[in-house]
């Protein structure tokens, strides 16, 4: 199944995403942000990096790239769309996911493994995982602090759309386990239909033993398993 991995000027994680997806049997293809033809793409990944240098606001300019109209169309059509780190920020700016990502609480760029608890399997990113499962995955960001208007936050929580939360290694969620001050320890969310998902940590960097953790595999496997054939 073909997966479009979109590259913006400043994206830097597309090769790792392509590698990890290939290992899982998908057919990832890098798509330049000015291309508007996503014909045949069963799903889309917006990878990490610094699209447009994070100028103005992270993801603010990327959301208007020519390719994004097609990404939005695929998202609306129910195709799996995944935003990793900067990709999550772009999906939030595009309004495909609620809320926004702002500067980390302690104003430090965080670059280390964190633990994530799977809080909902109702998304293309977590459907193959076990509720309560704890995953050790690298976090690598300065603006990973999730915020949202109270109504959006309640909706996320009430509808079981917070899919991943920062936790301790044994799965407890407390302030001490929250690396960046993210509201309610939120690390990843999904939309109403569960086909658009965003997370700040990098599952592609925890997809093989040589990377120190393969815990990200279950997330990427879920995404690949959610892909359905595109009519020719």
């Amino acid at each position, binding site marked *: 199944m073909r997966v479009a991995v979109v590259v913006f000027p400043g994206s830097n994680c597309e090769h790792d995403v392509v590698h990890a997806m290939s290992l899982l049997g998908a057919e990832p293809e890098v798509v330049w942000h000015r291309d508007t033809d996503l014909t045949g793409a069963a799903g889309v990944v917006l990878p990490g990096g610094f699209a447009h240098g994070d100028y*103005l606001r992270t993801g603010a300019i990327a959301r208007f790239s020519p390719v994004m109209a097609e990404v939005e169309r695929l998202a609306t059509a129910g195709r799996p769309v995944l935003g990793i780190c900067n990709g999550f920020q772009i999906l939030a700016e595009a309004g495909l996911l609620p809320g*926004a990502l*702002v500067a980390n*609480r302690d*104003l430090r760029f965080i670059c280390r493994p964190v633990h994530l608890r799977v809080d909902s399997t109702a998304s293309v990113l977590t459907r193959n995982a076990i509720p309560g499962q704890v995953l050790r995955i690298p976090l690598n960001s300065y603006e990973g*602090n999730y*915020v949202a208007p109270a109504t959006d936050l309640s909706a996320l929580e009430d509808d079981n759309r917070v899919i991943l939360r920062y936790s301790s290694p044994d799965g407890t969620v407390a302030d001490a386990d929250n690396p960046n*001050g993210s509201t309610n320890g939120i690390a990843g969310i999904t939309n109403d239909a569960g086909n658009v998902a965003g997370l700040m940590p990098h599952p592609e960097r925890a997809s093989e033993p040589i990377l120190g953790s393969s815990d990200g595999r279950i997330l990427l496997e879920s995404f690949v398993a959610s892909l359905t054939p595109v009519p020719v």
Partner: protein
Amino acid sequence: MRFVVTIQRRSGIADPEGVATTRALVDLGYTEVGGVHFGRTITVEISGDDPGEAERRVIEMCERLLANPVIEDYRVEMQS
């Protein structure tokens, strides 16, 4: 024409820079400081001779790109 756009974080949205700077000021002895809030100033140069229309367009720019309504409020003022 020049328009000055002032962008401020909405109240209730985390402002870690503001919190850190408040702490720094208080540590410097300015114990009367209760809060610091960071905003941004964007100056937009507009060609044309219709200030009303230009201001309407700048407001539209704020709505679409310059400010994120989830986390920011904006103000537009024409610079004389």
